[in-house]
């Protein structure tokens, strides 16, 4: 390694797996020429926990709580995707009130996630004051979620066949009060990120990605929307309550970090509007229906728009009370390529903001690991796998 670097006269700056810029493990190597980045590589796989395999060993209800822990920030999204998929397999439809509450928790979670991201982005850019204020105000929405569902992070609002928590009048009025405060703060943050010259100096024209590039790389979520891609599962393939409560997609044309920031801050307003609408027209009725323990044979793809982009679950049932196969594709994994594509030519100082700009979730990314070697085959027999394992750990 050292010789290589010397020979090519390149200077490689490693960021991660342990680095103050990253709160989760991931490894990035930036080849720099002075302060200018001339090459970037990514290596993931430090937070692989075997969740997909773990699901096969648990029944459907247990599996939902396991996938809720794929990501700490979009926990509701994962549980909801799983529940929606399992319900579709079992031919069960959750009642409208449950669907609306799923939407409500999902949008509250989006607010919490975007505010968290804004703080992280500010911190990466050395703007700790903005970081402290956004995280202080994020407490409001965390408290609302705790009041509504009973927990601040892993809400466990879903059960198979509906939701656990109902929205009562006092809770609804508390949420509306919180939304008023958050809307006012969000407007303030929009003003800061779009006018403060020092922050603009760090975000404007950094990591610019054109619409064509975004399409080619497959950018999704706010990262794609910042490049003008009008893609949002909530609108394109509505699920849960989004059928009755359509959203307006927020897009920006800039494609740089500024546009990504603006998209996320403007999505706060959209979420707040949606929450108000849902609370205003909450359908009456039951909040859950009975779900069979054994799910009929079949396979289904369940898609949901997480704060970071599209979450995709492939779920296969063999007719037992346990899933046959769960495949999870999280949004972060789709967006990594955008960082690597846009990093070259920027300053080293921009790298943390660029990395944080896609709102990465490392534990989301690490679903499975495949180490490709020269003589690797696509499939391994059990015997070959055993021999490989024995050799690897010798």
């Amino acid at each position, binding site marked *: 390694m050292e010789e290589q670097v010397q020979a090519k006269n390149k*200077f*490689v*700056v*490693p960021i991660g797996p342990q*680095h*103050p*810029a990253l709160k989760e493990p991931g490894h990035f190597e930036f080849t*720099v020429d002075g*302060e200018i980045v001339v090459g970037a590589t990514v290596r993931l796989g430090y937070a692989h926990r075997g969740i997909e395999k773990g699901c096969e060993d648990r029944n459907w209800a247990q599996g939902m709580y396991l996938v809720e822990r794929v990501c700490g920030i979009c926990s509701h999204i994962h549980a909801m995707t799983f529940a929606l998929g399992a319900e579709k397999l079992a031919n069960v439809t959750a009642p409208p009130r449950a669907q609306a509450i799923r939407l409500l928790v999902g949008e509250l979670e989006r607010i919490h996630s975007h505010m968290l991201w804004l703080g992280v982005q*500010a*911190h*990466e*850019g*050395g*703007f*700790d*004051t*903005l970081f*402290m*204020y956004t995280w*202080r105000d994020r407490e409001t929405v965390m408290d609302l979620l705790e009041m509504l569902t009973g927990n601040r992070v892993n809400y466990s609002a879903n059960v198979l066949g509906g939701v656990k928590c109902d929205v009562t009048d006092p809770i609804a009025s508390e949420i509306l009060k919180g939304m008023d405060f958050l809307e006012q703060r969000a407007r303030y943050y929009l003003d800061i990120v779009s006018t*403060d010259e*020092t*922050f603009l*100096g*760090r975000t404007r024209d950094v990591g610019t990605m054109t619409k064509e590039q975004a399409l080619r790389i497959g950018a999704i979520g706010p990262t794609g929307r910042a490049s003008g891609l009008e893609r949002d599962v909530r609108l394109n393939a509505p699920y849960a309550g989004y059928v009755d409560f359509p959203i307006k997609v927020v897009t920006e044309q800039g494609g740089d970090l500024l546009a990504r920031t603006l998209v996320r801050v403007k999505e706060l307003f959209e979420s707040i509007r949606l929450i108000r609408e849902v609370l205003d027209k909450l359908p009456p009725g039951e909040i859950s229906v009975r779900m069979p323990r054994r799910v009929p044979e079949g396979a289904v793809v369940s898609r949901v728009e997480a704060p970071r982009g599209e979450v995709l679950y492939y779920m296969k049932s063999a007719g037992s009370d346990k899933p046959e196969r769960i495949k999870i594709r999280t949004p972060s994994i789709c967006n990594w390529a955008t960082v690597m594509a846009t990093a070259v030519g920027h*300053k*080293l*100082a*921009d*790298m*943390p903001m660029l990395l944080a700009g896609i709102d990465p979730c490392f534990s989301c990314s690490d679903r499975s690991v495949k180490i490709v070697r020269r003589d690797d085959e696509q499939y391994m027999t059990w015997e070959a796998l055993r021999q490989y394992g024995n050799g690897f750990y010798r």
Partner: protein
Amino acid sequence: MSELSSLLALMIFPGGLALLAAGLLYEWADRKLVAQLQNRLGPRWFQPLADTFKLLAKEEIVPQGVHKGLFWGLPVVAVAAALTAALYVPLAGLNPAAAFRGDLIVALYMLSLLTLCLGLAGANTYNRFSVIGATRTLTQLFSYEAPFMLSLLGPALVAGTWQISSINQYAAGNTWMILTQPVGFVVALVGLMGKLELPPFDAPEAETEIVSGALTEYSGRGLALFHLGKDIELVIGLTLVSAFYLGGLTNPLAFLLKTLALLLILAVLQSLFARLRIDQTVGLWWRVGALLALVQLLLVIVLKGTGVL
């Protein structure tokens, strides 16, 4: 007798222990103010002291491949330089422990020596973050040093002397120079922030990019000494700027009020901006800072020449 008093001046007051204590307290005040501005609690008053003791008690890990003498020596030189500079400034509003014609230049160079030591300490190791940190430290040194010096030369020219204590006396007897040379004051204040590597000029030690910059490989005693050096630099910088621009420092109360007021302004500035990239820092200093300071200086010279001042 004079040997004893010089020894006292060096070891206890105003140099030595009193200065270290003041440095730690000012660091605490700075952190506390920033915390208050960010609506959080901030550290308790003894936190910087506790940090220093902890670091001094820790094992110092000397990484492979460094020049051992430099690794050990640079922190000592850095603190020594800062302590020496303190002898020429009117700490606590009292007369400086030592004074001679042109000590302003010596004091400024002593302060730059600290930054130079920091840069060398970073360049001494093989650590990539340290090397980049060192490059940035030295780049920043070259960018803020000239404007900062020019901004301090303004008052010196007006007072007609390059001796800190005389400028202090002149400032105490005349209109506050923040009013007569406002541009110089702003440049000096912002220059001080650059010198201390405070946000938004903290690119040389930006933790989200290069961990801890030049000090990444320092763990125990060396880190403590560098931190102490920075704290002393903070006190000296505040003293210099308030002595020159805020009507001089003639008694301890005035010293306390003026430096703390200045510290509050520093804290507000620290928490108001996003970090500047090193190229933005350099651009800002040479395109704006140096130019403004130069114009101010020329104006002072011309006015002085025509006899207005």
